[in-house]
Every structure is written in structure tokens, then in C-alpha cells.
């Protein structure tokens, strides 16, 4: 009994004195200006998405066809970013577009992280033929250019934003799967896992309570970067007419619709393009910062 008590006291003391890994990471993250700028951009767009209806002066599809002066109007005090060829306020559409792009980015990455982690953990932990099968499937998927695979999947499912999201999630699964698998391979040799096995812990408990949490940090980095790619891929699919449907204000679709007005009304293309660029830049900067912060090898 006394032993136990002293043990717990020791633990408490440790927690007070030692700086936790998350705190270390945050300190190193803070040092990078670029990472902070990236985070600021991401937060800005997230706020834009959440408070969209309060910020946007108009809805997404308020066409003003009968008034020629409101069609393709340049930016002005009434229409901050100008209007498109339907007379719709581009500012409002860009604001609402943030909801779509961020939702697609986050959801598709969450889906692929969940599926990828599941497959990766199983492959890494059980090894042998299960590993072979899963890894070869990943290899096959990675052999295709990702956007081509996404196009193929959307063509099978039928073009819609939801299917674009699914397609993007699917093409990203192998990235996460491989990442987790390699991490699991090293973690499962750690002493505490061996110990857990030795005391007869069930596989499922070892897997989900011990191996997975300890293999997860690279996934956070990869996930942040993957959101950026997912947003671009969603925009690309919509640009090709395989994603968002009219009148959804998806940024890629806005670009495609505005393409014919590139010379005459450049603002119709400029602002959706800028929005895509900034969000992706934000996620990339943030992701890079996170990687530097979380990767033990990068520490001096």
C-alpha cells in the first residue's frame, strides 16, 4: 500500500515540473512567424465560414439579370468585390464559398484519416498477408495521379459536391494509411507494448488505446497539409464541372464560370482565385509550422 501511494505522489510531482510535449511543441510553433500568419489566415476563414450569413450582404443566388448595370459591375461601395454575370454579389458568394471549401477540406480529411488510420494500424500491427494486401492496394492507388483517380471516382458516382468530397477522401486514404503503418511498425516494438502483450492485454485494447495514440502525431501534420490539398482538389473538380453544382458558390466553380470574362471583368476570377490561394497558403504555412514543432528530429 505505501508503495502505491508514494508512486502516485511521484507522478504528480513529475507532471508539475516537466514541460509536456504539447507545450514544447507550442513554444517551437510560436517561434515561427510564418506558422502564426498561416494560423491567422486559417482562423480568419473559419470565422468567415461560421459567421457567413451575418457578414454577407446578400444570399448566394440573388440574380439581377434585368438590370444590365448590375451585371459584371466592377468593385464598388455597394458590391465590394463586384458582381458576376448574373448580377450576384461576388463578396457574398466568396464568403459563403468559405463554408463549402472548409467543410469539404475538413470532412474529407477526417474521413480519410479515419479510414487510413484503421487500415494502417491493422496492416502495421498484424503484418504478414494482411499487411501485404493492404499495402499493395495503397501502392496501386498511389500509382495513379491523385486528381485522375478523383475524376474517375466522381464519374462513377455522378458529379456532385458530396461525391467530390468522397472521392477526395478516398484518394487521400493511402497517404494516411502508409504513414500510420510505418509508425505502428516502430511503436509496436516498444517495450510498453511488449509489456502489454506480456500481461495478456487484448489486441484491440493494445491497438486503439496504446499504439494508435502514440502513432498519431505525424497524422496531425499530414492532416493539416492534406486539408490544403483537399481544398485545391475540390476546387479543381468543381472547375471541371465534377463537383459543386449551380448555384453553389464553390470557389473553383466560380472560377470556371468566370473564365470567359477574364479579359473583360477580371474581378469575377480574381477574388475566388485569391480566396483559394489564401486558404491553401494558410493551411500550408500552419502545417509546416506544426511539422517543425512536432517532429522530434527537427529539434536542436
Amino acid at each position, binding site marked *: 500500500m505505501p508503495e502505491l501511494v508514494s508512486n502516485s505522489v511521484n507522478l504528480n510531482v513529475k507532471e508539475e515540473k516537466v514541460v509536456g510535449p504539447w507545450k514544447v511543441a507550442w513554444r517551437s510553433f510560436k517561434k515561427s512567424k510564418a506558422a502564426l500568419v498561416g494560423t491567422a489566415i486559417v482562423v480568419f476563414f473559419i470565422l468567415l465560414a461560421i459567421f457567413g450569413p451575418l457578414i454577407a450582404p446578400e444570399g448566394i443566388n440573388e440574380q439581377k439579370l434585368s438590370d444590365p448595370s448590375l451585371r459584371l459591375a466592377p468593385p464598388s461601395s455597394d458590391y465590394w468585390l463586384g458582381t458576376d454575370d*448574373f448580377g450576384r454579389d461576388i463578396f457574398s458568394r466568396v464568403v459563403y464559398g468559405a463554408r463549402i471549401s472548409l467543410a469539404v477540406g475538413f470532412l474529407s480529411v477526417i474521413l480519410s484519416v479515419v479510414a487510413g488510420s484503421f487500415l494502417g494500424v491493422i496492416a502495421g500491427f498484424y503484418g504478414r498477408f494482411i499487411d501485404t494486401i493492404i499495402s499493395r492496394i495503397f501502392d496501386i492507388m498511389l500509382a495513379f495521379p491523385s486528381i485522375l483517380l478523383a475524376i474517375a471516382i466522381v464519374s462513377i458516382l455522378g458529379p456532385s459536391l458530396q461525391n467530390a468530397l468522397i472521392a477526395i477522401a478516398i484518394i487521400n486514404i493511402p497517404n494516411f494509411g502508409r504513414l500510420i503503418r510505418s509508425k505502428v511498425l516502430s511503436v509496436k516494438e516498444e517495450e510498453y507494448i511488449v509489456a502489454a502483450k506480456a500481461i495478456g492485454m487484448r489486441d484491440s485494447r493494445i491497438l486503439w488505446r496504446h499504439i494508435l495514440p502514440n502513432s498519431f502525431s505525424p497524422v496531425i501534420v499530414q492532416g493539416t497539409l492534406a486539408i490544403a490539398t483537399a481544398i485545391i482538389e475540390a476546387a479543381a473538380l468543381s472547375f471541371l*464541372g465534377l463537383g459543386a*453544382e449551380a448555384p453553389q458558390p464553390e470557389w473553383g466553380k466560380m472560377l470556371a464560370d468566370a473564365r470567359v470574362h477574364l479579359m*473583360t471583368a477580371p474581378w469575377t476570377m480574381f477574388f475566388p482565385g485569391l480566396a483559394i490561394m489564401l486558404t491553401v497558403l494558410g493551411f500550408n504555412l500552419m502545417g509546416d509550422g506544426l511539422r517543425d514543432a512536432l517532429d522530434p528530429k527537427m529539434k536542436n
Partner: protein
Amino acid sequence: MKKSKLWSFGLIMLLALSVLLAACSAEEGTTEEPAETSEETNDGTTTEETEEAVPQILVFGRGGDSVSLDPAIVTDGESFKVTENIFETLLNFGEQDTTINPGLAHDWEVSEDGLEYTFHLQEGVKFHDGTDFNAEAVVKNVERWKGGAEEQFYYFNSMFKAEGKDIIASVEATDDLTVVFTLSRPQAPFLKNIAMSPFAIASPTAFEAAGESFGDNPVGTGPFTFVEWKRNDSITVAKNEEYWQEGLPKLDTIIFRAIPDNSARLNALMTGEIDLADGVNPSDAQTVESNADLQLIERPSMNIGYLGLTNTRPPFDNKLVRQAVNYAIDKQAIVDAFFQGRAEVAVNPMPSSISGYNEEIAGYEYNPEKAKELLAEAGYDGGEIELWAMPVPRPYMPDGQKVAEAIQKNLSDVGIPSKIVQFEWATYLEKAKNGEADAFLLGWTGDNGDADNFIYTLLDKDTIGSNNYAHYSNDEVHELLIAAQSETDEEVRSDLYKQAQEIIHEDAPWVPLAHSIPLLAGKKGVTGYLPHPTGSESLVNVSIE
């Protein structure tokens, strides 16, 4: 050793020659490959240098490749654009209208009862393969069309067959240059029909020998002879030196190039890759007009762009819903916005320039309130409909996507939710033809300027499964249209069409949207190009300055 020296000497000579030739060809502005042997090329360069006149080569950029170059079997405009230059018809349309003019027949007579047509043929005309053009050749062509199956000779069957019976009962060559057509019943637009591009006279020797592959190696009497066809890229035709009309054609070579994207095609024109560009976006009209090196060319309008409402599918099997949709759509705004005003708002299923057009019909005005009332009266359940938008720009509708988006908004304003659907073009037509669409955008460019070619072709119950995509069927309209087909008195005939339009207006199988003015652009130096309202024309009078 000796051998290798010879080799290197030869190689040096070749190098020197190629430098020389490259210099020459740059001066000439041609991209001809230098020939292999030295003596020949030397001769070649000297003659080229003495030649003063620059060969007249016109590159015509268009939206798609031809399907086949046998005019009798094709139905697409891109094929006729080429065959019009290789083949000729017995009669021609006017330069920019659909009046009847002499073609391969210089004179013609019609019997009192309208059943016998006698054509007197042009003398001394030869096909490109040397075969004589005469009455016998005409007879062989007509017999070829008559003997073919419907899917093979689509146009012949749709124009000259009714309920499975031939309208052309017989064709006879009474002498070498006279041919007599006997009809089984009078057909008012017979002369206009015979002037259509599909009824061009082909060389009997050639099509008998070639069989199915005649479309790859067309032989006609036209101003240009076929040279080569690179699929999905270009078709080249060259001047017919033996052409029967003195001094024509003016061009030496025409290259028809397929560039699917409208903007890309206009860019190609601006960079000088092509000389004429078909299908210019209305939004680019200003760009062309403000460019001093280019000219904007308008094709006279003879088309209709419409929103078809499949009459056999709910909710459009209800006349009130169809009328409501007609009230719901702001046609003027659509024309202003997506045709850049280069179109007329449509009221009837054919343009007003065609005789028989009913001017007393007012057209449904834009009235969302009225539309809502009608929908309530019809008991419409608010179910979502599919709104099909064509995936490619068409002459009658430059941007189907945008028009669909505007219509989608109009419909949602009156409480009809819709989803815009897109298919690849061939699939789109096939599915719409089978009546699988709820509402679909489509259009039609007239073939011969006759009311029959619009109303009967597009809205008669006989044409369900071919061009009656809306599956509209009304027996009263059918009787009027059939009566009009065999009526030869112009006044009575017009009156029949006017009555039919009234019923159609009431039944509202479509929302007629616009009669557009298709735009083309050309280099300033291109003269003599007169686009024809039917969408295809011979380039016999075109020259480049």
C-alpha cells in the same frame, strides 16, 4: 574509308541544302518539307522563287470535326460545312436566304397538279473523278437514297417519306440533260427540300465503287476536291481546276480545322493560326470589333433555342404546369444577359422571317404571380425536377449552362425546385430523344426556311423519337400540318400553320426562348464570305486579300 568519306560529303551537302531551303521556306511563309534528293529540291526552289502569286489558303476554324463526308447520310452541321464545298445540289438557296436559285439544274418546271417536276441540267459538268454529270447520274443518286434504310439516309427519309411511303414515286431521265421527278402526292416545299445540302449529287461511279467508305473519299461536282482528312483535326480540300463556273473558286485550298473551345478558337484567330472562326461567344463580340485586324460577321438568324418540357413526364404532363413555366421565365433578361442582346425573344416555335409565322400570338409575358396561380390550380406537388443543360455551345444558344442557371432561379422563385443536369452531348441528345429529361435546353437551325421544317419536324406526333424531343402529341396539330404539307396554295398553307401555332401556344410544349444571331469572326482580308442562315455554305466566292 572511301565509303565513309562519301557519306560525310553527302551529309555536309544535305546540311547545306537544308539551310538553303530553310531560308527559302521562311521567305515563302510555307511549311512545306524539303524534298529528299538534291537535284529535285534545287529545281523546286528555283520555280518557287519565280512564282509571284501567294497561294490562297484559307483556314476555317470550327467547333467540331465532321462525322462523314457523304452528305446523304450525315445530319450534323459540321459535315455539311465541308460537303457544301465538294458537292452541289440541283437547286441552290440564295446567298443569304432560302429563295430557290439555279444550281446543277439551270431551269425547272412544275406541272399543274404539282406532281411532276422537270429539271433541265447544266451542260458540260464533270465529277472530280471524270464521270460525266447527266440525268442518269441524278437518277442513280435518287435511287441510292430511296433504296437505303432510314438510319442510313435520315434526311431523305424525313423529307421525302411519309408514313413509310415514298413521296418521290419515280425519277426518270427523259434525255441526257433532263430529269423528271414524279411525286405520289403534292409536296409544297419540294423545291426547297431538294435544295438542301443532304441532296447533293455524288458521282455514281465513286459511290458504287466505294460503298460504305464513300464518306471517307467523297467525289462530287463542287468547286473543291477532297484532299485529306485527319480525324478530329483537319480536313483539306483543294481547288477544282475543271470547275464548270468560269473564274471560280477563288481560293486554292481550304483547311477546316476543329477547335472545340470557342475562346481557344478565337485566340487561334487572333494569333493568325486560322483565318475564319465559326461560333464566337457573344461576350467576345466586343473584343473582335475593337481589334483592327479582325471583322465580326453575323450569320442571318434562322433558328430557335428553347426549353423543352417533356410532355409525357410529370409534372409537365399537365398543360397548366407547362404554361406556368412559360410565365415564370424571364426571357428578355436571358436574351439580354447571355445572348448579349444578339437575339430576338421567341414566341412561336419558328422565327418570324419564315412565311406562315403567326404574328397575332402575343407570347407569355414574364409574370411569376400568374405562374404561381397556375401551379396552385394544377395541384403541383413541389417535387424537384431535372433541368438539363447542353454541355456544348450551340449556334442557337451560346452558353446553355448560364441560361440553365438563370432558368433555375426563375423556377425556384415560383416554387419549382430544380437540379441542373449535364451529359456528354451525344448522350444528352439520345436521352432527351427517349424522353428521359424533365425539362431540357435544345434548339434547331432551319434546313430550308420552310415552316414545315420547324413545326412538323419539331412538334408533330410523327416525329416523336426523332426531332420531337418534347414528346408533344396533338392530333389536331397533326392534321393541320399534314394538310399543309400537300397544300400548294401559299395563302391557305400559311393559314394552316398559323392555326397550328395557336394550338401549340395554348398547349405550351416548350418555352420558346430566343432566335439568336450566330456570330463568326474573320481576318480583315477575308472577302466574299456570306454565312448562310442554314448554317453551312459554299466558300466558292471567298478570297483573301
